[in-house]
């Protein structure tokens, strides 16, 4: 999980790593936009070989929700 949060945080430049936890509602972040959404999709593919789409992002609220997709 920690590893996943690290990878997640890396896609978002302006927010410090220590501001992220498994419960972070990532879509509420100031910087959240469609491009970061695509970075998350690409990161999950590259790091975890998991293919998700825009609807998966839409249906997730917290970082943990996304992490569950990795282990689904």
């Amino acid at each position: 999980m920690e590893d996943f949060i690290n990878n997640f945080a890396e896609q978002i430049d302006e927010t410090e790593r220590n501001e992220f936890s498994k419960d972070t509602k990532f879509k509420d972040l100031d910087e959240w936009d469609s491009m970061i959404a695509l970075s998350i999709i690409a990161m999950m593919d590259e790091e975890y070989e998991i293919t998700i789409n825009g609807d998966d992002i839409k249906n997730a609220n917290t970082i943990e929700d996304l992490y569950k997709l990795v282990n689904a």
Partner: protein
Amino acid sequence: MDKNTFSLDGKTILVTGASSGIGKSIAIACSNFGAIVLLLGRNINRLEQSMSLLNGKGHSYYSIDLNKSEDVLNLCNDLPKIDGVVHSAGIVESQLFSFLKEDSLRTILDTNLIAPVMLSKHLIKKKKINKESSIVFISSISGPAITYIGNSSYAASKSAICGIAKTMALELAPKKIRVNTILPAMIETELIDSIDSSSEDIELDKKNYPLGGYGSPEDVASTVIFLLSPASKWMTGTDIKLDGGLTLR
């Protein structure tokens, strides 16, 4: 001028990507306008399905991977003489620039750029393309005009095609062979399904089109008919924007 100006009667037209989407629609339209159509694609079932929708007789299909240069050379030897080529085979893969993989960049360039260009070159060199023929490349609005996030390889391939098309147009003009490209914005086909957007985002995106929503494969096909027919005999080296008004804003 009469309606024969837009006719393809007696012409033989080669259409790549004819097993799906825009290419399939183009093949059908060509047959409706009187052409004998040679359909190219990989998937035999879908090629046969496209064949079954054609009007008139004399059509044939060839299952071939256009990235296999040996096979393409052999095919060019086997083909009859033709009066028009429409390059609609193509792939899209969305990848953010910072995640760009060399392999996927090369695959896109191979399929969208090298394959149609080398096919054209072989056909010309082997004198399979008659005088006064027309060559049409289905490029895209993405690259030559605008771009989308994640579209770097695709945009590169589609811009490059426009550059080559103009050079071909200049060099082939003495034979009265014309070369033009069409730049469609989003067209409703299976290709759209391979893009990482949610259905909600797609509905929102459609609102950006002044003429209302995405285009249909038939919209592209009717422009192709114009470019293949004598109606466009004084047009070459042109990129035709076909975007429902998208780029006006």
